[in-house]
């Protein structure tokens, strides 16, 4: 091969190589903050400084000593779980009806059901604080549960509608033709088919709830502090690697959930914007 020929080949591939370099830099940018937080969480230093010279688990021990962080994580998990269950109870029947409806009303209904996703959370937080205080709920677990359920419903509806539309009518029609009652068809055919959709919709709802600062902010008290609220106030008062440790713990929970979603329905439902 002559030099000019290989030069020409390089010239032809150059744009793609440049693009590849750009993409690699992009992912470095995307992952860098996360990687460094994890590194800091295993550091031994009192202050956050680089490079990390010695590693230890002292900040994870600190989590066990300084209870508010772990307590709020536990509180957040309970809240996220309860709101996901509630969102499924409201959202799944609605999604099943919407997915097969040809009514003109269906458009309007699905716009309303998905709307909480498009409203600035901080506004929803203020509005709900007013409303719930007015009806005597005020700052309580119930208030937080209501607020988080409002935001969780769209995730369940969106995922279940997508999964239910994807499976078509054939299975249910076959069951009906073979003599199954509507109830039997639902229990033995529909539910198993959409189970993965419900599961991943609820998991998304849990993850969103765990990270929802703007909404929980308004309902914070000693008894009702969620993890993001405690993390924020910790960060503003003492800037030490304990915050990195609790962030890492939360990330591991989220990553396990993400892998579960991957295994059940895939990530594509996460990515559709509406």
């Amino acid at each position: 091969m002559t030099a000019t020929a290989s030069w020409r080949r390089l010239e032809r591939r150059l744009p793609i190589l440049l693009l590849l370099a750009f993409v690699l830099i992009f992912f470095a940018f995307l992952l860098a903050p996360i990687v460094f937080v994890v590194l800091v969480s295993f550091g031994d230093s009192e202050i956050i400084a680089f490079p990390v010279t010695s590693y230890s688990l002292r900040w994870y021990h600190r989590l066990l000593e300084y209870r508010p962080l772990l307590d709020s994580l536990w509180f957040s998990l309970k809240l996220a779980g309860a709101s996901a269950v509630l969102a499924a109870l409201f959202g799944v029947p609605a999604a099943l009806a919407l997915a097969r409806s040809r009514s003109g009303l269906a458009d309007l209904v699905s716009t309303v059901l998905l709307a909480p996703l498009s409203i600035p959370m901080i506004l929803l937080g203020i509005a709900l604080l007013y409303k719930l205080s007015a009806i005597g709920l005020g700052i309580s677990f119930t208030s937080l549960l209501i607020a988080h359920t409002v935001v969780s419903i769209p995730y369940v509806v969106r995922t279940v509608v997508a999964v239910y539309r994807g499976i078509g009518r054939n299975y249910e029609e076959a069951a009906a033709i073979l003599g199954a009652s509507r109830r039997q068809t639902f229990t033995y055919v529909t539910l198993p088919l959409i189970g993965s959709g419900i599961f991943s919709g609820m998991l998304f709802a849990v993850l969103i709830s765990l990270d929802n600062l703007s909404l929980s902010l308004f309902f914070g008290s000693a008894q009702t502090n969620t993890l993001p609220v405690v993390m924020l106030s910790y960060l503003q008062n003492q800037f030490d690697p304990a915050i990195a440790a609790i962030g890492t713990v939360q990330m591991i929970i989220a990553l396990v959930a993400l892998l579960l979603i991957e295994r059940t329905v895939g990530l594509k439902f996460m990515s559709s914007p509406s």
Partner: protein
Amino acid sequence: MTAAAATAIRRSRRALGAGLWPVLPAMIFLLLFFLLPLAENGLQSLYVPDAAGEPVFSLDYYVRLFTDGYYLGVLGRTIWVSLLATIICILIGYPVAFFMVRHAGRWNGLMIFLLVAPLLTSIIMRTFGWNVILARNGVLNSTLMSLGLIERPLRLLQDPSAVIIGLVHVLVPFMVISIAAVLKGIDTRLEEAAELLGASRWRTFREITLPLSLDGIATGAIVVFMLANGSFLTMLLLGGGSVVTLPLLIYQQFLLVQNLGFAAAMGNVLLVLAVISLFLQLRLIRRDGGAS
């Protein structure tokens, strides 16, 4: 009335509601705890306490928001910061989406995972991560100093550029995902045809690929703009008061001043921005539906 007519009526009734009753519990719940609170919040912002502390109807909060130089500045900055973040997300996100769809091959799945994974880590953790990188004795400064490029640490935090970096970092995955979804749908034969007819690769991209992917850019831009408009954590933790936007001001009004009526009014201005974005998004989706 004949039996046939009765059946027809029943059928038309069913078509109208078409078995939509299972949506009722969810609709009632959202009516009570979503639509109603937002509407009441709108009313609340129209009542301003008078000298005696009694709420009276007044447009005072809105007049203040739209005439006072400080608040106009905040409003303008909110829109400007979101726009800037959106534009940077497009410029960074497009090449990544293009690579993902056209060249990633079997790495595509890994790329999607890496894009989505940060979205599921706590936003506080990600913002804290930028603190770690940009702080005085952070990663960037210590690297630059050990390389001998700078002599004393640069002041990178508490600066508008830190806010933009943080916003772009949080929001760019949404842009990549939106653009990739549209790029995937483009018939590559159109590009092949253009190249066969003698167009250069750049010209093919400029005249075929880019125009066909504008919908993806638009969808992504609306999502990013809307999310940027509503975020305050990035401004709070990375801006250190150098970038005061509407959501940050709401947060401060609520926590420090406890002026709920004024916070509600600012929230409603934010809502108007969100509704405009939502309206644009719906129109885009409609157009998509009509085209396919």
